[in-house]
């Protein structure tokens, strides 16, 4: 298991990792004038727990065959994944400075051309089928690694996800773990106003998955549940993670506009101060 150690303080917690990832994301989207900071912040805690505490990985050998696979299906949260990979030592941190800039490989939707990234996404509804194929390959070959796929709630509008949900349950792929970032906001309005998902957990259970719901910012709950999966033998697991879009910066939380805006200089300073203050 990989355990995160903060380079300056020596702290060994996923919460310090989450804070550092959020700070990096802020700088990245500010520099690039890029969108999607809100969608990044809702999954940062899950990423910190996965990469810091749960997944099998070797930062100096990111293609190590025995690693757990992570697929970001909500590809617009790329900055969160790049920052995480940099903080756990897979990527050089200075690379983040090129995020979204001319000539950079670090496009603002996640790219397989980046070390440690398994899959390029950006169009929604692609990650779960792809992850299902990986899980099937692992099972066919008797390999022990797991596949984690991070989806957005709005993304569950895509029919391809429901095709994959049926398939994975039918084939009893219990090495597959889907995580739904249920922050209740999509591109123009709330999920409930756009295309109602509820009762989401019941739907997923009816599709044959093992379902748990947690607070997606509770590190202990994230770690316990992600570490334990599969929760039922012969069933794929889906963690419905109740989150807050923009989590960690008060003026970004639960606001649709932070799906699009990048922070001004003043907003960047205020956001960083709030994060440092909160964790101090």
């Amino acid at each position: 298991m990989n355990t995160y150690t903060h380079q300056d303080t020596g702290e060994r917690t996923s919460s310090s990792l989450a804070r550092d990832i959020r700070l990096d994301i802020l700088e990245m989207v500010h520099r690039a004038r890029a969108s999607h900071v809100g969608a990044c912040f809702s999954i940062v805690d899950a990423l910190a727990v996965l990469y810091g505490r749960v997944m099998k990985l070797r930062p100096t050998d990111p293609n190590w065959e025995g690693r757990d696979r992570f697929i970001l299906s909500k590809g617009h949260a790329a900055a969160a994944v790049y920052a995480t990979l940099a903080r756990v030592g897979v990527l050089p941190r200075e690379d983040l400075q090129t995020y979204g800039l001319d000539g950079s490989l670090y496009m603002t939707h996640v790219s397989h051309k980046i070390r440690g990234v398994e899959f390029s996404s950006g169009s929604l509804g692609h990650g779960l089928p792809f992850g299902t194929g990986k899980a099937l390959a692992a099972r066919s070959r008797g390999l022990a690694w797991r596949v984690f796929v991070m989806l957005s709630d709005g993304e569950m509008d895509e029919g391809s996800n429901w095709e994959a949900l049926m398939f994975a349950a039918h084939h009893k792929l219990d090495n597959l773990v889907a995580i739904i970032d249920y922050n209740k906001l999509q591109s123009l309005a709330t999920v409930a106003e756009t295309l109602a998902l509820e009762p989401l957990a019941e739907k997923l259970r009816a599709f044959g998955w093992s379902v748990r719901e947690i607070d997606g910012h509770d590190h202990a709950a994230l770690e316990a549940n992600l570490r334990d999966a599969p929760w039922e033998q012969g069933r794929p697991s889906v963690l419905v993670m109740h989150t807050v879009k923009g989590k960690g910066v008060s003026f970004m939380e639960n606001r649709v506009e932070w799906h699009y805006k990048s922070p001004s200089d003043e907003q960047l300073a205020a956001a960083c101060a709030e994060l440092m203050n909160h964790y101090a």
Partner: protein
Amino acid sequence: MRNAFINELVALAEQHPQIALVVGDLGYSVVEPFVDRFPERFINAGVAEQNMTGLAAGMASEGYHVFTYSIANFPTFRCAEQIRNDVDYQKLPVTVVAVGGGLAYGALGYSHHAVQDYALMRVMPNMLIAAPGDPSEVRGCLRYLVENPQPSYLRLSKAGERDFHSGRVPELQPGRWNRILSAESESTQVLLTTGATLELAMAKRERGEYSGAEVCTLPLWAMSAKRFQSEQVARHSAVITIEDHLEDGGFGSWMSEAISRDLELRKRLHSVALSDNVCGLVGSQIALNRQGGLW
């Protein structure tokens, strides 16, 4: 072609344990030899082509060479974005197999007419199109694809096609024309086909159209194979491309782009392709090809 496909795939899968076949709930009386021999490498993904293609890409990312299989437009247009983003962009070894290329399923209606598939597949930068002209070329295409796994599209006709190679499996290379019949009477014309129109070209020549012309196929072509075309076109006074696809975005259109910078060569190119009048008509393959202007 369907039988040549499955028999060759079974033979190759004997030697290549990474080959897997994923179907979209189609392939009755075709895929059984593979299912019987390699049940652990066969998956029926159900009527769900997006997931079929996405999971094929996922398997391919873990070392498999996956063949997805369905009819006409289902494994291509229905999941075009999965092919574009998951397979082609990430350069994964998935071969999309469509049976019923052109108007082979003529009576089944427009939903089953694959007359725009080249247009879709040839604009993907890493995609190799494999459009064999007869059963032996099916085997030749498959052998090339298994030796050179990559994003690829295998367009099959249906069943009962004549074989013009006397059973000899040709060695095929992308962009390289495969000579079926030499020129006679000092003709310097060539009939150049891709896909199942080889039989049609042979019939044209037999009945005196393009008398004595050479007949070639181009079963393997791609964006990256355009660069080989000028030198081959230059050896002939006229190149007549024949395809069972609409002219727009088709094979002749590809060839025209390939030689477009040479005005002299452009004059030699004549494209025979389906008229869009055929869209929505119903009938046998022969009748529709005639109505579409191929005869």
